[in-house]
Structure formats: structure tokens, C-alpha cells
């Protein structure tokens, strides 16, 4: 169970960091952002893929930290990036799992 | 009727005992159609009614055999291994009870229920914990009732007539005190006057 606790802690820490960071960046009142932020999307994809598919506690923990960082941004930011990251991670997970099952 | 109105009726405390009584009555009536029969394999079995009286035994309906203080009587508890001196009380009779049993054969109940005897065995020994609870129930409800009556329902300090009487007495008292004070005043003044002169 220890690994799950580590994942949860890193994810929460990442979210908090992301929140702090995005408040520092954007001080204005709520706006629904339509722009797609590419660097954050890359971070998100990297995070979710690492988190789901690495199979290593430390790598997964880092992955969840990154994923949490994007997902935890203040409302209106980081939604699309998270969605893209999550979808790609699931696809990668399924692709990786299939051969494993066959073996 | 709309179900909401029905639910609102259930929220009034006054209707609850009646609702409870109604549902209890329904279950009791359902009980009439359930096949009921006494299981003959019971604990603490007693002989058929009037059998012992007709035999003319001195301690009529409660004779379960056994010699006082020597041989345990014939009773049948759930866990005999938990009761070491089982049946000894069944055979025991206090001196007073011995005396009564020697003068008349018709006082079996009283003889047997004076300390010792079958029912005492059950009440104090094999099922003693029940009796603790029952006497506590009695004690608690008497505590409640007597507390209420001493402090409220019988408390004459709240009674109007009594208060009126008290007020009257208090007025009288204060009048008397006032007159005393006045008299003392007059006396003191007289003394003062005398000294001045």
C-alpha cells in the first residue's frame, strides 16, 4: 500500500504547487481560457504516461507530481491539457498492456 | 391522501403511540394464524396443576424434592455447571417456615417463598442478573417519580394560597419588626435626651 500512499501524496503536492504557480502567473478574475498551452500539455502527457505506465515507484511518483501540477491549476486553466494527457496515457497503457496479456 | 400529508402526520408525537399500538395489534392478529405449539422440552419443569395439592404435600405447588441442607432438589437449569450449590436453596426452609409448615398443610406458598425455595433459587441464583435489573428498573422509576413530586408536583412552595399566607405572615412580621424598631428608637432618643439634660 506504501506506493499508493506515495502516489497520492505526490499528486496532492503537485496539485498544490500547480495552484500556487498558476495564481502567481494569472492574478485576474475568472476567465474561461480557450487557448491550448503546449508546454503544459507536454508536461501533462509526460506526467500521466509516466504515472500509469512506468511500473516503477519513483518514476510513477514523479509522473503523478507532474500530472497533479497541470491538473491542479486554478479553475479555467489546464483543463484541455489534462484531458489530452489522460487520454494519451490511457491509450499508451492499453497498448502496453495488450502484448503483456498475450505473453 | 397525498403521501406528504401522511408523512407530516407521522411527525407529531401525539400520533406515535397510536401508530405503534396499531402496528402491534396487526402483528398480534397475524400471530393467530401462525402455528403455535409448546415445545415439551423446557427448563425448570413443574408438575401438572393441582397434582401436588391433591397429594397433600405440605409445601404444595413448589415441592421439588430434596432434603433441606443435605440433598439438592430436582430442578433443571440451563447451565448446571455454573451453579455450584444448585438445589440447596430449593431444599432450605427458614426456622419460621418450618414452624408454619408444622401447624398447617395449607400454607405451602408462603412457606416456600420465605427465604429459600424454588423461585428464590431462580430469582437470586441461576437468573440473579435479571433480578438486579428488575429491581434497578423499579428503583429508577421511583427516583424519577419521587424527584418530580418532591420538587415539582407536590411542592407547596409554588402554591398560591400558601404564598399568600406567607406574604401575610411576612407583612405581619415586618410590621412587628418596624414597631420594635420604632419603640427602640423612641427609647434611645429618650435616653439621649436624658443624657443631654
Amino acid at each position, binding site marked *: 500500500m506504501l506506493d499508493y500512499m506515495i502516489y497520492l501524496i505526490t499528486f496532492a503536492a503537485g496539485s498544490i504547487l500547480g495552484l500556487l504557480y498558476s495564481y502567481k502567473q494569472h492574478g485576474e478574475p475568472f476567465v474561461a481560457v480557450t487557448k491550448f498551452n503546449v508546454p503544459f500539455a507536454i508536461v501533462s502527457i509526460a506526467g500521466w504516461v509516466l504515472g500509469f505506465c512506468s511500473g516503477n515507484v519513483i518514476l510513477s511518483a514523479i509522473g503523478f507530481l507532474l500530472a497533479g501540477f497541470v491538473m491542479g491549476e486554478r479553475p479555467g486553466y489546464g483543463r484541455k491539457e489534462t484531458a489530452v494527457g489522460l487520454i494519451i496515457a490511457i491509450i499508451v497503457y492499453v497498448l502496453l498492456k495488450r502484448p503483456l496479456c498475450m505473453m | 391522501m397525498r403521501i406528504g400529508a401522511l408523512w407530516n402526520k407521522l411527525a407529531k408525537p401525539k400520533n406515535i403511540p397510536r401508530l405503534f399500538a396499531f402496528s402491534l395489534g396487526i402483528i398480534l392478529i397475524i400471530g393467530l394464524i401462525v402455528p403455535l405449539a409448546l415445545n415439551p422440552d423446557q427448563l425448570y419443569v413443574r408438575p401438572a*396443576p*393441582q397434582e401436588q395439592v391433591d397429594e397433600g404435600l405440605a409445601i404444595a*405447588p*413448589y415441592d421439588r424434592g430434596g432434603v433441606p441442607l443435605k440433598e439438592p432438589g430436582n430442578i433443571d437449569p440451563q447451565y448446571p455447571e455454573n451453579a455450584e450449590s444448585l438445589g440447596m436453596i430449593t431444599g432450605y426452609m427458614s426456622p419460621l417456615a418450618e414452624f408454619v409448615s408444622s401447624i398447617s398443610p395449607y400454607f405451602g*406458598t408462603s412457606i416456600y417463598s420465605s427465604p429459600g425455595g424454588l423461585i428464590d433459587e431462580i430469582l437470586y441464583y441461576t437468573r440473579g442478573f435479571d433480578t438486579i435489573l428488575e429491581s434497578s428498573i423499579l428503583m429508577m422509576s421511583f427516583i424519577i417519580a419521587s424527584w418530580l413530586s418532591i420538587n415539582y408536583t407536590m411542592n407547596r412552595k409554588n402554591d398560591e394560597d400558601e404564598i399568600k399566607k406567607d406574604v401575610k405572615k411576612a407583612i405581619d412580621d415586618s410590621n412587628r419588626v418596624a414597631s420594635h424598631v420604632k419603640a427602640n428608637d423612641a427609647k434611645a432618643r429618650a435616653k439621649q435626651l436624658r443624657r443631654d439634660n
Partner: protein
Amino acid sequence: MISVSLFFYFGIFLAIVGSIATAWGPGVSDPVVRTFNTEIASIGVCLVLLCYNHVLALLTLLATTVIITLILFRAIIRLEEMGADV
């Protein structure tokens, strides 16, 4: 020999009659009458206990019936005296 079952069934009869009288008898809107009618049922129960040879229970029932009646009458009197409508 006396017939135990005669008194047994009579006791049951008396208990049922007494309870019906308590519930719907004539003049039961007066609490005093209602309390009186419970006595009939309790005599019926006494007979049944006698037939079962529960003699000590019978003694206790006799004593408690008197005391319960006393308590109920006390409540009735106090409430009437107060003029409370319950």
C-alpha cells in the same frame, strides 16, 4: 377433584370480557369507569395464573393491581382538579 380447565377457560373469558369492556364498554369515556373495568380483566388473569399454579405471581399481581389502581386514580384526580383536558 375440581375442574381446573373450567376455571381456566372462565378466566380467559373474564379477561377478554374485561378488556372489551375496558375498550368499548358503556360509559368508558369517564376514566374512572375505564379503570374499574380493568379490574375485571385482572381478576380473569388471576384465575389463569391460579390454574397454572403460579401462586407467587398471583400474590404479586393482586398487590400490584391495587397499587396501579391507586396510581391511576391519583392521576385522574389531579388532572380533574387542574381542569386539564387530556
